């Protein structure tokens, strides 16, 4: 899953630690999270801490058991749904600035990744440090768009940090899905999509493309869809596969399931399903084939290569730090463009098969 963290950030591009110590000494990347030292807060920590600032609700970023959890109301609702607790939850609205101990100011800014997702801007000692969490740049009907925010240190993800990852226009991929439905109306198209974010986005994009039919859901997706609806995201008519009166009822329809259910026994109750998967990884043929996917849909909630590099250019920070993903290629790009960068070697963020 994760490569050896000790080997990241090669010596050729070694970061000059003394310099950092002077410049941004109040923030320390540790393998299990980013430590905001004067406030004794952690951003998306992989272990339980007293005070956590959380960017979004995916399990690799939002874990339970913290004393206090600062996050957007949407993210806190997602955490409550997943961990059945709201102990220590401190809601912070988008663009609201709170002051943490030690005089550190923190602001949650839309990241465009999933419902409630935010970048966290930290300000202290005249310096601005921005942590993106996960983000994307293209429009998403289920959450507000990413906002470019000037900063000194830009701490970014790089899940799709390889130049081969260029996600095609979303409408193009949605058309592939509706075309496949129309081509074989006696079958259904079973789309594998992660329960938080991707599933709702695929539904919302289908609705935006004029697809008004009932969409059938695997039971594992139901609650999150309802949560999105509670926050005002209209998902149109949804039904549970387990409530289907017969196989025939699902013919010619879209069925959504978590990726793990695609080739499982569960799928036997569907009418001759065509297996699709909505993920940025579908860009690479072999990856799609390995998962037995017959209709790859390149729909991602992460920035692709062009978005990543464009964002670094637009934000124009003094330094770019890369939390997780394919950081070698991003480091190389920064080097080619004379931008100062380093890899942080954080552990615990999902690289493959996670919530992308």
């Amino acid at each position, binding site marked *: 899953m994760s490569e050896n963290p000790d080997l990241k950030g090669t010596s050729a591009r070694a970061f000059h630690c003394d310099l950092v110590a002077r410049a941004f000494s109040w923030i320390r990347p540790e393998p299990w999270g980013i430590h905001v030292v004067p406030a004794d807060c952690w951003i998306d920590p992989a272990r339980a801490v007293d005070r956590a600032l959380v960017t979004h609700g995916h399990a690799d970023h939002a874990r339970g058991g913290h004393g206090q959890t600062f996050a957007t109301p949407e993210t806190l609702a997602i955490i409550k749904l997943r961990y059945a607790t709201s102990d220590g939850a401190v809601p912070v609205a988008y663009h609201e600035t709170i002051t943490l101990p030690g005089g550190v100011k923190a602001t949650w800014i839309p990241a465009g990744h999933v419902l409630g997702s935010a970048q966290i801007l930290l300000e202290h000692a005249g310096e601005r440090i921005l942590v993106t969490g996960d983000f994307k740049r293209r429009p998403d009907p289920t959450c507000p768009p990413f906002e470019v925010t000037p900063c000194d240190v830009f701490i970014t993800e790089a899940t799709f940090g390889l*130049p*081969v*990852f260029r996600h095609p226009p979303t409408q193009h991929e949605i058309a592939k899905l509706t075309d496949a439905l129309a081509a074989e109306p006696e079958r259904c198209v079973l789309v594998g999509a992660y329960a938080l974010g991707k599933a709702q986005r695929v539904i919302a994009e289908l609705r935006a493309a004029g697809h008004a039919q009932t969409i059938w859901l695997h039971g594992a997706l139901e609650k999150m869809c309802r949560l999105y609806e509670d926050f005002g995201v209209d998902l149109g008519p949804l039904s549970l596969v387990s409530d289907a009166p017969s196989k025939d009822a699902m013919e010619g329809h879209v069925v959504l399931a978590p990726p793990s259910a695609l*080739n499982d026994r569960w799928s036997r109750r569907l009418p001759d399903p065509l297996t699709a998967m909505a993920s940025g990884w579908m860009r690479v*043929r*072999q990856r799609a*084939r390995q998962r037995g996917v017959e209709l790859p849909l390149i729909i991602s909630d992460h920035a692709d290569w062009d978005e990543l590099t464009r964002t670094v250019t637009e934000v124009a920070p003094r330094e770019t730090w890369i939390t997780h993903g394919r950081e*070698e290629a991003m480091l*190389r790009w920064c080097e080619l463009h004379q931008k100062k960068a380093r890899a942080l070697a954080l552990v615990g963020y999902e690289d493959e098969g996670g919530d992308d």
Partner: protein
Amino acid sequence: MEAFAALLDTLVYTRSRNAKIAALARYLRDTPDPDRGYALAALSDGLDFTAVKGSTIRALMRERVDPELWTLSRDYVGDSAETASLLWPEPEQVLGPPPTVAQAVDALAAMTRTTVATELPALLDRLDAEGRYALLKLATGAMRIGISARLAKTAFAQAFDVAIEDVEEHWHGQSPPYTALFDWAAHGAAPPDTENLPLFRPFMLAHAFEADDLDLDAYVAEWKWDGIRVQAVHAPGESGTGESRLYSRSGDDISASFPEIPASLDVPCVLDGELLVRGEAQGGKEGGAASFNALQQRLGRKTVSKKMLREAPAFVRLYDVLQIDGVDLRPLPWAQRREALESLLHRLDPERFDLSRLIDVPGFAELAALRENARDAAIEGVMLKRRDSPYVAGRKTGLWYKWKRDPLLIDCVLMYAQRGSGKRSSFYSDFTFGCWDGDPDGEGQLLPVGKAYFGFTDAELKDLDRHVRQHTVNRFGPVRETDKSLVFEVAFDSVHASARHKSGLAMRFPRIHRIRTDKPAHEADRIESLRALIRD
């Protein structure tokens, strides 16, 4: 090119054979000439463009992408053409419509080592990522998407609703873009003229014999030798100096693997027979043929060493003749063809061709008794052919029967299971089974001896799938190891010594005959019992 690129991706992602055939058939129907012909050639045999190599693509990319980013990307994707298709810098403005397949083929064919550096980019600039992938695959001839010649012909037949046998007959000797072939199939023109070429003719095939009696006045009986069915052809050829070929049952040219056969044939004729290697395993000294295993050592080789030619010389045991001196004998009854074959024999090299003997028995009961003993002679079984039947392509009911000897049976223990593909992708349907090596009640271990994925009903498959899920002790990627509690009665045609398997054995056509839930695993067979059945 867009339609071809879409087809290519459909074929890459589709698991089911029927769905692949349907996709290819749809493309062939909907696409005009000559695009569809070139596409067909590219998918089945590959087109060769000498100026474009894997290194050409790497060189083009070096000029456009940072080498470190290229290497990182290439390592991740695992395929140079695909990596290049994704990394290719999109041109600032549209540089013209995408080329058709035919335009791309013409352009690629005209490229030289010097012009390729400017002309290939010009094509790539007019395509999107999928189109670039298709073009680069087309250019380097490395499709590798599992389209066999047979599948391509089946799709062609399905597309135009013509008989696959006719497709096979007319396909041979045609070259891309197969315009004459499409004219015939799609537009009802006369089939291509191929009289003087050493072409493949579709085989006549047999049904399994399942009755318990047959009138031997109407049918003749013949041994079913255990080799591979071949067709040896000699014709004047385009030059008129004579050309010979050896074809496998699927119509593949296997002359290069068995050069001694075509080299020794100089009579214009089309012969049907069994390819065998000299030996004594089949039918003893008189039978004169080694086991299938001996032949297998020579299959699929592109070149053959002198040592192989000396130690495992091949020959054809003749069953039938389709053509002599340009005269088509196929409409004649079997008896007349047999006469013609017998009288042709003195014109053939006796070292490479002999006649498959007819079985002379007074009645069916005697034949049945002879067949019972076929196993000892290591022969596959008996063929029954209607004396008055013409030679017709394909499998026509009532004309030819194969009456295989009964299968061998052995009790094995289920060891590993793997998910199937297509409709079976949610089922554990590929089973590896083993026999005991040593005392099953003592220190004995199970040793895998074979793999089977058919022989059971759909209902049994559900039970097997459930058994695997409930008895899993280990997982290795897609493979599950079971607790080795279930016994299969495995049927198979023969077993051979094999250095490639840990057990030292290789079974032919193993299938699950019965599921022995009544039998405890320690009562399954020991490997010695299987070894004793080797007749190499």
